[in-house]
C-alpha cells in the first residue's frame, strides 16, 4: 500500500509539471491583464521546438533553449496583436491554437519525415538528488525525477517572490488591475504587457518541451492534448497566486494519476468516466473551493491610452 502511495505521488509530480510550468508562466501575463487561451498552441510549438532543437543540435539544452525561444516568439505575436493592435484576446488565443497545431505538425513532417521511426533524441534525464534519493520509498518518489520537475517546484517561491516582493512584480500586478493609473505614474503599460507575455511564452515553451522530452523523448502530433487548457484553469483555480497554482496543478496531476491507476487495476467503471475525472474535478474545485474568485480587474481588456 505504501509503495502504491509513493508511486502515485511520483506520478502526480511527473504529470503536474508541464501544467505547473505553464500556469506559473501565465501567472505573469494574467496578472498583467492578458488572458491567453492559446496556451495550448504555444505549448505544442514548444514541444516541437524542443524536439527539433535537440534533434538538430544533439543536446537537450539546445532543445530547451529553442523551445523557450519559440514560445517567446509566438507570445510576442500574441502581444503584438492584442496589445498594440487591441485585437480580442480570446480570438487571438483561439487562432494561436490552430496555428500551433498546423505549424508543429507541418514542421515535424519536414524535419522528421513521415512514417519513420522517431529519431532518438537527447531528452531530459532523471536527476537523482544525492542522499535524499536514498530515503526508502520517499526517495525514489520525490527525489528521482527529471530536472524540470524540481525546477518547476523551485519556481513556485521564486515566482511568488517576483510577483509580490519586487518592484517589477508590483508594476505587473498594478497593470493588470488599473492600467490607466499606471500610465499616470509613468509606467509603460504596453511594455509591461509585452514583457509578461514573453515571460509566459518562455514558460509555455519550456512546459511544452517537457511534454516532448521529459514525459517522452520525441514529438508526436497534438501531443499536448489539452494540458494548455488545464493550465489555464489552474491559474484561475490557484487564484493567480503561485502557491495556489501549485496546489491546483498537484490536484490535476493527482486526478490524472488516479485515473491511470484505477484503470490499470481493472475496475468496472467505463473508462470514459475515469477520463472525466480531471475535468469534473476542475469544475468541482471552481464551484466548491474557489467561490467568486475575481481575477485582475483589467484582465482580458485591451488598454487604450
Amino acid at each position: 500500500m505504501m509503495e502504491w502511495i509513493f508511486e502515485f505521488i511520483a506520478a502526480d509530480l511527473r504529470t503536474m509539471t508541464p501544467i505547473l510550468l505553464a500556469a506559473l508562466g501565465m501567472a505573469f501575463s494574467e496578472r498583467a491583464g492578458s488572458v491567453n487561451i492559446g496556451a495550448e498552441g504555444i505549448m505544442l510549438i514548444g514541444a516541437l521546438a524542443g524536439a527539433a532543437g535537440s534533434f538538430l543540435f544533439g543536446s537537450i539544452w539546445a532543445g530547451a533553449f529553442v523551445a523557450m525561444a519559440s514560445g517567446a516568439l509566438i507570445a510576442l505575436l500574441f502581444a503584438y496583436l492584442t496589445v498594440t493592435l487591441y485585437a480580442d484576446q480570446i480570438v487571438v488565443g483561439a487562432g494561436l491554437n490552430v496555428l500551433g497545431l498546423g505549424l508543429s505538425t507541418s514542421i515535424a513532417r519536414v524535419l522528421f519525415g513521415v512514417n519513420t521511426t522517431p529519431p532518438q533524441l537527447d531528452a531530459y534525464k532523471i536527476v537523482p538528488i544525492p542522499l535524499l534519493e536514498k530515503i526508502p520509498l520517499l526517495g525514489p518518489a520525490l527525489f528521482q525525477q527529471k530536472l524540470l520537475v524540481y525546477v518547476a517546484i523551485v519556481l513556485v517561491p521564486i515566482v511568488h517572490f517576483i510577483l509580490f516582493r519586487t518592484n517589477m512584480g508590483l508594476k505587473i500586478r498594478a497593470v493588470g488591475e488599473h492600467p490607466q493609473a499606471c500610465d499616470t505614474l509613468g509606467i509603460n503599460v504596453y511594455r509591461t504587457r509585452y514583457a509578461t507575455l514573453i515571460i509566459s511564452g518562455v514558460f509555455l515553451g519550456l512546459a511544452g518541451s517537457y511534454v516532448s522530452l521529459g514525459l517522452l523523448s520525441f514529438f508526436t502530433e497534438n501531443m499536448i492534448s489539452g494540458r494548455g487548457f488545464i493550465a489555464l484553469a489552474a491559474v484561475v483555480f490557484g487564484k493567480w497566486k503561485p502557491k495556489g497554482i501549485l496546489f491546483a496543478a498537484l490536484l490535476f496531476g493527482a486526478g490524472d494519476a488516479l485515473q491511470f491507476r484505477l484503470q490499470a487495476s481493472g475496475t468496472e467503471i467505463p473508462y470514459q468516466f475515469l477520463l472525466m475525472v480531471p475535468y469534473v474535478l476542475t469544475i468541482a474545485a471552481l464551484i466548491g473551493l474557489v467561490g467568486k474568485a475575481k481575477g485582475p480587474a483589467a484582465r482580458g481588456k485591451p488598454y487604450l491610452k
Partner: protein
Amino acid sequence: MSPVLEMNGIVKRFPGVLANDHVDLRVEKGEVHALLGENGAGKSTLMNVLYGMYEADEGDIRFKDQEVHVKGPGDAIALGIGMVHQHFMLVPALTVVENVILGMKDNGRVLDLKAAAEKITALAERYTMKIEPFTLVGQMSVGQQQRLEILKALYRGAELLILDEPTAVLTPQEVKGLFNMIGAFTSEGRTVIFISHKLKEVMAISDRVTVLRSGKVAHTLHTSDTDPKELARLMVGREIDLSCEKFSCADNREVLRMERVCAENEKGMAILKELNLTIREGEILGVAGVDGNGQDELAEVLTGLRRVTSGTITMNEKDITNASCRHILNQGVSHIPADRQLRGMIGDMNVVENLLLMRYHDRPFAKPFHLDWKRIEHRAETLVKEFQVKTPGIKVPMATLSGGNQQKVVLGREIERNPKLLVAMHPVRGLDIGATEYIHKRIIEQRDRGCAILLISTELEEILELSDRIVVMYEGEIMGSVDCSCVTIEQLGLMMAGHRWEEVAGEKSEG
C-alpha cells in the same frame, strides 16, 4: 516674482473639438491658482497636457524658467509636477504603500515595504494626515483615497500639485483638512493648481483665478478683486440664481416609513442600525453625513438593491420590506444613483436605450412580442429636448456625453415616471454651476408636484439649500432629525462627527 509655470499658446484638438484654443496660463511660485470653467471648458485637457498625458498640438511650456517637453507622466513627475486626477488613479487591489511607491524610479529591485511605510507615515504626519499604510485601498473611504492621491504626489516630491476637482467627493471636514494641507504645502514655497466648480471654495483657498470658457482663457484675476457672482458670470455668461422657496408640509400624507431597519454589508458587518425615517408628500428630506456612514446602503435598502436584516419599510401603507427591485420601482420609486457611470447608465448604449432603462417592459413601449422603437425614440427626442441634454444626436453612445449631460439623461429618465418617492444621491456631484442650477430646479419642481424626496449628499450647502428637514447619519445610525430652519452648519458638522442632536441642540449658533 517670476512665474514658476508658463503655458503659452497651448492648442489641443480632439476630432471635431478644439479643447484648448491658444491658452496662456501663468502660475506664480507658492500660490494657489484656481482654474474655473463649465463642464467641457477644457480644464482637464490643459492639465493633462501639462502632465504629459496628452501632447499639445501647439504652444510651449516653461517650468522653473526652463523650456520643458513633457512626453509622458514620467517626465512630469521627474520635473516635480504631481497631479491628482478627477477620477482617482488608485489601484484598489493594492495596499496604500504599494500604491504610493508604484512606478517610482528609485524603488529597489526588491521592495522594502516596511521602510517605505515608515517614510509615508512620516510624510503624512508632516501634513497632519493619518494613514494606515497596509490597508487595501479598495477598503478606504473616498476621503481617505483623496488624501492618498495627494500623498502619492507629495511622496514623489511634487513642487507643483495639480488638483482636478479634488473636493467633489469630500465632506466639509475633509475639505477643511485638504485646505489645511494645501496651506502647509504652499507655505513651503510650493505651488498648487486647483480646479473646482465650487465658487466658495475657490474664493476661500485661491490667490488667483483663471477662467476658461470654450477652450479659451476668459480672464485671469486676483481672487481678492472678485466675488462669486462675477466668477459665475465669467464662466457661464449670465447671472445664476440659486435661491429657492421652502414649504411647510407637516400635515401632508406620509409616503415612506422605515422602522428599526437594519442591514449588513458584504462582510456581514452591521451597516444600518435600527434606522427610523419618514418622508411626507412634497417634502425634501436631506440626509447629511460623511461618505461611508451608511448612506449608500440606505438608498440600496429603499430601492430593493440590498436586503434588510430586520425592521420594516412601508410605502403608502404597503409593506415593501425586501420586495424585489422591480416591485419597488413599480410602487413609484425613482432612484438617481450615486455613481452614474457605474449604475445609472450604460455607457456603450445610446441615449435612446438609456432612456428606456426603466420602461422597457411598460405597455406602450413593449408590445407583446417586440419593442416599439418608433414610440421609444419619439419619447427620447421629447425628453432630450425637455431636459436640455446637449448631445449630437439621440443615437450616440452615452459614454460620449459629458458628465453633466449624462446626469440630465438620468434625471430625465427618473423624473419622467412621475415618482411618488425620489431617492437622489449626490445628484450634482462633479457638475458645473449651470448644470447644478438646472438639476436643482427640476428636483424642486418635483417636490412642488408632491413627490417625496430623499436627498443624500455630502455637500452640506446643497442639503441646507434644498431640504425641508435634515437627518444626519453616522456609522449607520441617525444622529438626529431636525427642521432645516433651526440648525446651523456647526451643529450639523458635530452630528456628522457622531454627536447626537440632544447633545448639540443647546449649542448657540453664531449666525
